[in-house]
């Protein structure tokens, strides 16, 4: 299984268990279908960053009150702000399957989430290389809704990047991204390489989560390994 297939298995709650044959086949089919259907799009901009010592972060003109984000961005001078989506077609596909076949639906849902993560990882990897060539280092992605980074900032990101016009990414009144398989995030850029062991999933304190990434998995997976060293 490749990286994204493994990730989909994790989202399906298998933990350390081996995935059964039928589900594995469903995962393969789902990715095939998603590769045909998904229209991955991203928009981003780099803003100046200020982190005064009062638990706020200032990205461009946007002031965010979040200790977690301030900690994540400590030592950075700039921040990438991004929005990305798999497009509305994936939502339609999910809706269609939810009427016909629920097992396919949950697998497709997990695969779509994995595909989006992979798309963002690849994008970030490319930019990491480019940035490092210029002596800059990227932090892990941090999204509205993580820790005390309020979900309502989703609105600011969408407005500042013109996500609706550029990539068709919008938001409901209750801050849900539409299309549903979408992400908004910020990434700190620093001039110094800071060894950083915090990475998304593992950082979370909910250690009994069935979707938690396993340490063993992280060690054997070269991509995570590489990222581990980087951040």
């Amino acid at each position, binding site marked *: 299984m490749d990286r994204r297939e493994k990730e989909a298995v994790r989202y*399906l*709650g*298998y*933990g350390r*268990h081996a*995935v*059964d044959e*039928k*589900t594995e086949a*469903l995962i393969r089919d789902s990715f095939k279908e998603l590769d045909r259907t998904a229209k991955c*799009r991203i928009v*981003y*901009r*780099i*803003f100046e960053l200020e982190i005064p010592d009062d638990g706020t972060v200032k990205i*461009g*003109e*946007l002031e965010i009150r979040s200790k977690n984000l301030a900690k994540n961005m400590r030592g950075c001078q*700039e921040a*990438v702000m991004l929005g990305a989506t798999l*497009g*509305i*077609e994936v*939502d*339609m596909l*999910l*809706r*269609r399957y*939810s*009427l*016909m*076949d*629920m*097992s396919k*639906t*949950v*697998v497709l*849902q997990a695969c779509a989430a994995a595909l989006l993560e992979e798309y963002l990882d690849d994008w970030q990897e490319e930019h990491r290389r480019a940035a490092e060539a210029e002596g800059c280092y990227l932090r892990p992605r941090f999204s509205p*809704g993580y820790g005390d980074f309020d*979900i309502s900032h989703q609105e*600011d990101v*969408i*407005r*500042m990047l013109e996500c*609706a*016009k550029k*990539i*068709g990414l*919008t*938001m*409901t*009144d*209750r*801050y*849900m991204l*539409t*299309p*549903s398989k979408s992400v908004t995030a910020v990434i700190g850029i620093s001039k110094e390489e800071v060894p950083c062991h915090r990475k998304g999933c593992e950082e979370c304190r909910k250690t009994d989560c069935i979707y938690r990434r396993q340490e063993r998995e992280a060690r054997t997976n070269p991509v995570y390994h590489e990222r581990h060293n980087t951040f």
Partner: protein
Amino acid sequence: MILERLGKELLYFDGGTGTLLQEKGMKAGELPETWNLTHTEEMVDIHRQYFEAGSDIVLTNTFGANALKFHNTEFELEDIVAAAVVNVKEGAWMGVHDGREVYAALDLGPTGKLLKPMGDLSFEDAYEAYKEVVQYGEEAGADLIHIETMSDTYEVKAAVLAAKENTKLPVFATMIFDENGKLLTGGDVPSVVALLEGLKVDALGINCGMGPEQMLPILEEILRYATVPVIVKPNAGLPKQKDGQVCYDVSPAEFAKVMREIVEKGASAVGGCCGTTPRHIRALVKKTEKLKDLSKREKREPKEYTIVSSYGKAVILGDEPCVIGERINPTGKKRFKQALKEHDIDYILREGIAQQDAGAHILDVNVGLPDIDEPALMKETVAELQSVTSLPLQIDTVDVKALEAAMRIYNGKPMVNSVNGKQESMDAVFPLIQKYGGVVVGLTLDEDGIPDTPEGRAAIAGKIIREAEKYKIPRKDIVIDVLAMTISSDPEGARTTLEALKLVKEQHGVCTVLGVSNISFGLPCRQAVNSNFFTLAMHAGLSAAIINPLSEDMMRSWYSYCALMNYDQNCERYIGQYAGQKNAAPEVKDTRVTLKSAIEKGLKEEAHHAARELLSEKKPLEIINEDMIPALDTVGKGFEKGTVFLPQLLMSADAAKIAFAVLKDALAQAGDVEQKKEKIVLATVKGDIHDIGKNIVKVLLENYSFDVIDLGKDVDPEKIVDAAIRNHVKLVGLSALMTTTVVSMEETIRLLREKKPDCKVMVGGAVLNQEYADMIGADFYGKDAMQSVYYAQSCFT
């Protein structure tokens, strides 16, 4: 008047304002529209520069000025819009030195929200938001309405309708396409042109998204389908990232050079979008001055394509016959009638998906039953179908109210079934086609009935086409149905119909449609007659057939005909469909599998087979209790223990569902009554549009014989309470995904406690936990789907 000049002389728009505003000190994230009031001088100056550069039409700075996007407590929307119009007029006064007539165009941009059912903005709310702005704009003296940078056909429809219904101003609309000629929401060029021309915009086109070079192929495609004048407003090239900022780098000279080509190709109004400046417009005007008189260029003929469309796909009717699926129709279908009465929309949607999978190109939608609120149901069905299929729909009803309700909210240019030669029918239907756009089926019958002769039917077709002309409905938007009369009562029926098909095409040059199956009424082995008649009809020139695409005989005729007549290049579709299809029926792999193990392993075909086999030994109820429930319990326990996982749990559920269907049929045949089922209401709460969790719970509850009343997603608390009271349910299940929607869950619970205190509430969803569930007053927190099933069982014992 602009409409007198449009299409006769080349008109120039202005260019971008964003860059100019930034140069004048506007910060990223500031609302540009407020500058109309706070920086009047700067705004007027920008407009002046464009008029001086030669623009005839300058857009007001109101791109985001609608109630859905513009949230500012300091300024009233009305004042912003009024000031914006005045600023353009002021700019004209200062910038036009040659006395030419110029125009202030009220600019409408997208709402920034996604419309229902994929998003949370209702079509009506989008309409209202635009209505407010266009009314202010007309009052302030705008000369026209320019809707631009739209990437969603549904949203642009709301904007155009608002402009048309609430003002007398001309309406222009331009969309944002990508390099593949697609909208962000998936729409293609013919579907966009069909929709906008159907809605009677005065000009349409493309803006933003790319530079002039990249727009050339899209323009060509637009010109192939569009009859109205075409607008082109590119960016100054493709966006580039420089130091993290977006910039455009096509120079005014380069811009003007390609724009000249664009005008030569056939654009009638040109300007610029992001990154273009007054210098770009000045260069453009200079470069194209010799092309200004459009009457000298080759006349563009009206386009004759008969196009029906959905949000994403256009179907062009013509020589190659297409298939209209007839299954969404209660006539003669007991199960479908039951679904309509029970408001089982999912059943209808499944009928739609099955027909699409079987190869239908358009779906007929008929939900008429006595004692049913047809306008409401038609509207809902059409909207829901459009969230699961991109096929265009044919709205099939005799209820004019239902027709209008559906046409209004339909995303695309629908097919309408039908009008006929009776004056009363034409008086009712044509105004709707004129207003909303659509391709209408004209039945060749009138006050004197159905003529016996081909000539008689062709004459009625002529009458329908002439009457339509009075409404400016072109003949390309009329598809004639010459009617198939059953041969068992009218021996000449088939011949007359086939002759009439040819005659109508010859005499009137319109497309044709036919409900094929009627031909065999009263005969045995109807499929044989139907499929052969279908082939004959196609050969007589039928453009579209209303048939059952799930009928293999009919589809075989269609595939064969297309292959024979070279509509199917290299017989690709035919081969794709039939190559290696010896084992057409789904084979049961292992007939020795017991029902119990088929369910445990999630094997659908095997479960079906095993259930049928078992029926020879046991009664249905025994099978349920002795084989099925134990199997489901085993799987459920495994899930709890962590040896069975969600996909497997659901595969078992699907297998069980299939076995249940077999047993249900057996019960019905034996005249036995099914056990009375306990009812449970399920809903995803208001504001929440993620319902996969709720759907999982639904499947499992149904497995355990609960009667689930599924209210869907984004459901108002009042609606949930109403359903609970009306159905006397003892248990309601609610799902919410995010902290921002748990508030709706809390409100729903509070309302339930007040209005239906004897009802229990179980909750679930990603952000919930026991503590949170207790806090909002739920009776039970289901950490996974099986827990909900166990709790439901405990409630009813």
